[in-house]
């Protein structure tokens, strides 16, 4: 990858940085959800429709993730930029495109989750360094600490996106070049796995509510009806 190639990835890294920041630090408006983030990434390279398709697949996976306080969860913002760009950059009909792009996105989301854990530890170290000033009630120390954390998170998301793209772009091309499976089968495999995770996630959050399981079954029946009617 040349310096020029790297520079061309910078807008995507900036997008990954902003979306990575949204996951926890600011403003948590869920622009980091795959259905948004992947579509924006696709739009940035002129393929919003393909970005959206990848985003929908990843959104099924993300249905399961709940960012409870200190628990560990995947970071979907930067990961969706990676998955969205990989899938959107290839022509429709590329063998195995969606499968490999989804796998790259899931791996990035996992690494992104770990990077958030590291950042939270770093935040604690910085907080300890400011402890004396904060204990004395320094307003400026509180504000400075807040800005350091947010800037670091922005850089984390940007660096993660850039490194993931640098690693996965050539890998993606190499792997898809060896595959002969049809694009339809590739999509079907991703949809099957993603829908299973998504359906199980919905079940998990609604099954304790009285009557909700019947709403789900009724909805599924209607959904299959609509899908059949759309053919």
């Amino acid at each position, binding site marked *: 990858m040349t310096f020029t190639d790297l520079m061309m990835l910078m807008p995507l890294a900036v997008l990954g940085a902003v979306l990575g920041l949204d996951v926890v630090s600011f403003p948590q408006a869920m622009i980091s959800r795959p259905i948004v983030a992947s579509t924006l990434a696709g739009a940035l390279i002129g393929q919003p429709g393909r970005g959206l398709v990848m985003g929908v697949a990843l959104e099924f996976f993300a249905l399961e993730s*709940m960012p*409870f*306080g*200190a*628990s*560990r969860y995947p970071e979907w913002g930067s990961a969706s930029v990676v998955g969205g760009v990989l899938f959107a950059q290839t022509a429709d009909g590329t063998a195995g495109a969606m499968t490999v792009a989804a796998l790259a996105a899931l791996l990035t989301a996992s690494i992104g989750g770990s990077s958030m*854990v590291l950042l*939270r*530890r770093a935040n*604690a170290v910085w907080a300890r360094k400011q402890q004396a000033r904060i204990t004395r009630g320094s307003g400026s120390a509180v504000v400075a600490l807040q800005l350091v954390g947010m800037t670091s998170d922005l850089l984390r998301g940007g660096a993660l996106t850039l490194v993931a793209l640098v690693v996965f772009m050539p890998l993606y091309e190499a792997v898809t070049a060896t595959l002969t499976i049809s694009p339809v089968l590739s999509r079907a495999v991703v949809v099957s796995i993603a829908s299973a995770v998504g359906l199980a996630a919905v079940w*998990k*959050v609604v*099954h*304790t*509510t*009285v009557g909700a399981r019947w709403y789900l079954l009724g909805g599924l029946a209607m959904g299959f009806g609509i899908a059949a009617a759309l053919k």
Partner: protein
Amino acid sequence: MTLEIFRIDDRLVHGQVVVGWGQPCSLGFLVLVDDEVARSEWEKELYRMGVPPEMEIVFDSVESAVARLAGYRADARAGMLLTGDIDTMARLVAAAPDIRTVTVGGVHHKPGRVPRSRYVFLTPAEEARLLELAAGGVTVVAQDVPQAAATPLEVMLRGEGPT
């Protein structure tokens, strides 16, 4: 189904408990054991607001919890007992030795505590109290949410707990 989870968590009722454990384990009731909360009406009201309408929450002191434990165990619903600190759980176990497993779900930072995992910070006295529990035959593990692996006490105290 019965009262099957005995959790130490200084946040007591919060999202990990109500949603993180409550949904996959279909928890039907919570027993909050804290001598101070049991005496404070506004705190009980606050904790009630944190529990969904379909989940029951009862408040006990250590003494009343020991007296009612058999009833909780006989409950057909799945339940979780919560204490806000290690000392309260240790006092409970001392009076109710049939508690065989204790889960450390969250003991957070304050001056004097050393990090043992991302959600467990302990003073030397608290470590000693947990080791006493273990020496008495209680299985002590660290686990914040059910999807995470339960980390044995000795692993956690080596600082090799959940990261």
